[in-house]
C-alpha cells in the first residue's frame, strides 16, 4: 500500500533540506543568467570536486563522534602547508614531493589533532566554538614558526621559499614543481576541440584517491572504533557505561580528521599551484564546513552524499555568481561578496535550524512522555 504524502511530510522534508533547496533554486536562476556552456560548468565542477573533496570528507568523522563541525581542521591544513614548504625548499618534485609532504605533515597533524582533541574534551558541549578559537590560537603559533623559525631555527635556505633577509617564508610560494602532479598523472580528456584544448578533464588518479577515502570512511564506520564513535556521538554517558573510553575515542576522531585535512590541503594546494603561506589555511575550514552544510548535513548528521552534493552546489554558486553579477549589473565583484555572505549565512542558518530542531525534538519527547504518564494514570 502506498503511503500518502501529507502536508506534514512536505513540511518536514522542506525543513530538513532547506539549505540544499535554496542553493538548487539559486543555481537554477543563475545558470541562464551567467550564460556558461554546460561543458564548461561540468569541467569546473569536476575541478572543484577534485580540489575540495578530501578536505570536506575530513569533517565527517568528528560529526560521527558527536563533536560537531570541526573548525580545528585548519590545524591539519597548517600541517599540510608545512609539509609543502619543506618539499618546495628541498626541491622534491611531482608525486614523490606530494608523498613526502604528506609524510612530513602526518606527525605534525597527529600532534595538533591530539592537542585539539584534548582541549575539546575539556570543553564538552562547546566543541565548535572551542575548535574555532583553537584554530585562531594555532594560527598565531604557525605564523611565529613560519615567520621567525624557518631559516635560523629550522634550516631552510632555498631562495624560492625563504625571504632575502634570511628568515621567514615568503608570502606566496610557487608550487609549480608539484602542481597538478596527481591530477595529470592519469587524466582523461573528453570533448576536446581540434587543437586538443577545451573539453572536460577527468583526473582519474585523484578520483581514485577520493573514492578510496570514501570507502575507508564507510569501512571505518563498521569497525569497533567506528561503532564506539557513533555510540559516543549519541550519548556519552551511555557509551561510558558500556565501557567505551569516551575521551580517547573523541581525541582519535579529531586526530583522524586533522590528518585527513592535512592530506586534503596538500591535494588542494597542489591543484591550485600556489601556496599563500599566511592565508591559505585560514578560510579553508570555513569554506569546507559551508560546503558540507550546503549539501544538507547538520551539526549532528553528515554523510558522503552531503559532501558531494555540497561541493557541487556550493562551488557551482561561486562559478556562476561572478558572471551572473557581471551580466546583471556589470560587477563581477558581487560573486566575491556572495562567497563570503553565503558561507557565513549557510553556517548560521544550519546552526539555528539545528538548535530549533533539537528543541522541537526535546519538546516532542517531553510531550510524549507526559502523554504516556497521563495514560498510565488513567489506566
Amino acid at each position: 500500500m502506498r503511503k500518502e504524502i501529507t502536508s506534514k511530510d512536505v513540511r518536514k522534508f522542506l525543513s530538513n533540506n532547506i539549505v540544499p533547496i535554496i542553493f538548487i533554486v539559486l543555481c537554477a536562476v543563475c545558470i541562464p543568467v551567467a550564460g556558461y556552456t554546460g561543458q564548461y560548468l561540468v569541467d569546473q565542477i569536476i575541478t572543484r570536486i577534485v580540489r575540495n573533496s578530501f578536505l570536506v570528507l575530513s569533517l565527517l568523522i568528528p560529526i560521527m563522534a558527536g563533536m560537531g563541525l570541526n573548525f580545528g581542521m585548519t590545524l591539519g591544513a597548517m600541517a599540510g602547508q608545512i609539509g609543502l614548504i619543506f618539499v618546495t625548499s628541498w626541491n622534491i618534485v611531482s608525486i614523490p614531493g606530494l608523498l613526502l609532504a604528506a609524510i612530513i605533515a602526518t606527525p605534525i597533524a597527529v600532534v595538533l589533532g591530539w592537542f585539539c582533541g584534548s582541549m575539546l574534551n575539556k570543553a564538552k558541549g562547546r566543541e565548535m566554538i572551542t575548535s574555532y578559537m583553537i584554530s585562531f590560537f594555532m594560527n598565531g603559533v604557525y605564523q611565529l614558526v613560519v615567520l621567525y623559525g624557518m631559516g635560523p631555527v629550522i634550516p631552510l635556505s632555498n631562495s624560492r621559499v625563504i625571504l632575502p633577509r634570511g628568515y621567514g617564508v615568503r608570502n606566496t610560494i610557487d608550487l609549480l614543481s608539484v602542481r597538478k602532479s596527481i591530477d595529470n598523472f592519469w587524466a582523461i580528456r573528453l570533448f576536446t576541440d581540434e587543437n586538443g584544448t577545451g573539453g572536460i578533464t577527468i583526473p582519474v588518479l585523484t578520483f581514485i584517491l577520493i573514492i578510496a577515502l570514501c570507502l575507508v570512511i564507510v569501512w571505518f564506520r563498521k569497525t569497533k572504533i567506528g561503532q564506539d564513535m557513533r555510540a559516543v556521538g549519541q550519548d556519552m554517558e551511555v557509551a561510558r557505561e558500556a565501557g567505551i573510553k569516551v575521551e580517547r575515542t573523541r581525541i582519535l576522531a579529531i586526530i583522524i580528521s586533522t590528518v585527513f585535512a592535512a592530506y586534503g590541503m596538500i591535494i588542494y594546494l597542489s591543484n591550485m599551484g600556489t601556496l599563500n603561506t599566511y592565508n591559505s589555511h585560514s578560510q579553508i575550514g570555513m569554506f569546507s564546513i559551508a560546503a558540507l552544510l550546503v549539501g544538507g548535513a547538520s551539526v549532528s548528521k553528515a554523510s558522503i552524499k552531503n559532501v558531494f552534493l555540497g561541493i557541487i552546489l556550493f562551488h557551482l554558486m561561486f562559478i556562476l555568481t561572478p558572471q551572473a553579477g557581471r551580466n546583471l549589473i556589470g560587477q563581477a565583484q558581487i560573486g566575491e561578496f556572495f562567497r563570503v555572505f553565503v558561507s557565513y549565512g549557510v553556517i548560521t542558518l544550519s546552526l539555528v535550524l539545528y538548535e530549533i530542531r533539537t528543541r522541537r525534538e526535546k519538546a516532542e519527547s517531553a510531550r510524549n512522555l507526559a502523554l504516556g504518564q497521563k495514560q498510565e494514570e488513567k489506566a
Partner: protein
Amino acid sequence: MKSAKEIFDIRFFVRLACIVVIIALAVFLYNFGKERTLLVDNWTIEINGTSYRAEDWAKVSVDGQKAQEYSPRMRISFPLRGRTHTIAITYDDKSFNEIELPVVEFKLEHDSSLISIPALVAGLPAEECIQEFIVQPAPEAAAEENPEEAIAEQDAGFGDMTMEI
C-alpha cells in the same frame, strides 16, 4: 606500572616497524624526487690554471634526452631528478671530424651545478668538470617582501569581510 615485557610486546614492534618503513620511504622519496639543475656550459673555462677553449660546435645529450646543439658561449639548463646522471658529447675536432666521446657518468652534489663541455672534451674527470652554480637573485627580486605587513593587513581571520571594492 607496566613491566618491560608489557611495553615491548608484539604491538610495540609492529608500530616500530611501521615507523621505520615510513622513514625509509621518506628517505627514498627525498632521493628519488629531488630535482637538481644542471647547466651544461660551452664557455672557455680555466681549471687548475689551465684554460680550456669553448668548442666551435658540440652536440650534448643528458640522460639520453634529445641532444642539444651548442655553439661557443652557450649554456643550457636541464632539470634532473635523482643524483647519478650521464652525459654524451659529440664535437668537431680541428679537421671538422665529428668525434663521439664515451658516455660520462657523474653525480650531482648541489642543487644547482655547472658542467663544462670543453673540460669534458679535454678528458678531465667528471668531478673536476662540475662546479656548484650559485644563483644570485636579481636586485628587483631581492626587494624585501614584508609578510608581517601582509599579516597585519589580514582581518582577524573572519574571512574577506574587510575586503575593499
